[in-house]
């Protein structure tokens, strides 16, 4: 499941949306949070701009690549855009799989690829 939204997101609100099949022994989750500094400068908020239709398409491709690379089951990626304050959550990734090693690697891969490819931009405010 890929979700691009201006609404608040969190593992708490999204965990029911990741299927965890009975043969899965692991569900790995990641939250990306707005932090209060960047490059030595204080940050109070981040403005995220998004080309939503392409962000959704590109994240879908990245999720499919992860499923082809590792024996994992389901993936959920949610990215929020708009103005987010320090402490708010910009990104949630969830991955279910029979074993934990593959789920950790898939989540890492998805974050790394997202940062290289997905058409979302941020502007720190402070």
């Amino acid at each position, binding site marked *: 499941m890929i979700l691009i939204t201006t609404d608040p997101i969190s593992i708490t609100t999204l965990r029911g949306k990741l299927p965890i099949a009975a043969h899965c022994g692991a569900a790995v989750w990641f939250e990306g949070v707005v932090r209060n500094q960047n490059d030595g400068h204080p940050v109070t908020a981040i403005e995220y701009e998004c*080309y939503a*239709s392409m*962000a959704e398409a590109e994240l879908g491709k990245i999720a499919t690549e992860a499923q082809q690379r590792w024996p994992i089951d389901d993936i959920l990626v949610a990215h929020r855009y708009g103005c987010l304050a320090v402490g708010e959550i910009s*990104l949630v990734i969830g991955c279910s799989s029979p074993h934990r090693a593959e789920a950790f690697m898939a989540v890492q891969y998805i974050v790394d690829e997202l940062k290289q490819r*997905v*058409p*979302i*931009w941020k502007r720190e405010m402070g």
Partner: protein
Amino acid sequence: MKITILCFAGVREALGTRQLTVQLPNNALAGSVLRTLSEQYPALRPLAAYVRIAVNNAYASAETPLHEGDEVALIPPVAGG
């Protein structure tokens, strides 16, 4: 043909608009978009080397053919997550 181009982030700021239209020959390729826009918009020139082209929600190569009605976007270096 007339092509609509979506502008984001640094490109949007440099050109002062979220979208613009250009006239391109009917058999134009994606690679011609930045060339044509750089001629018309000097503010784009310092960014052009770093901008990728997307056609219909997917990254394009210079050889990707363009068609009337395609959604084309200028994608400056991304920074999500």
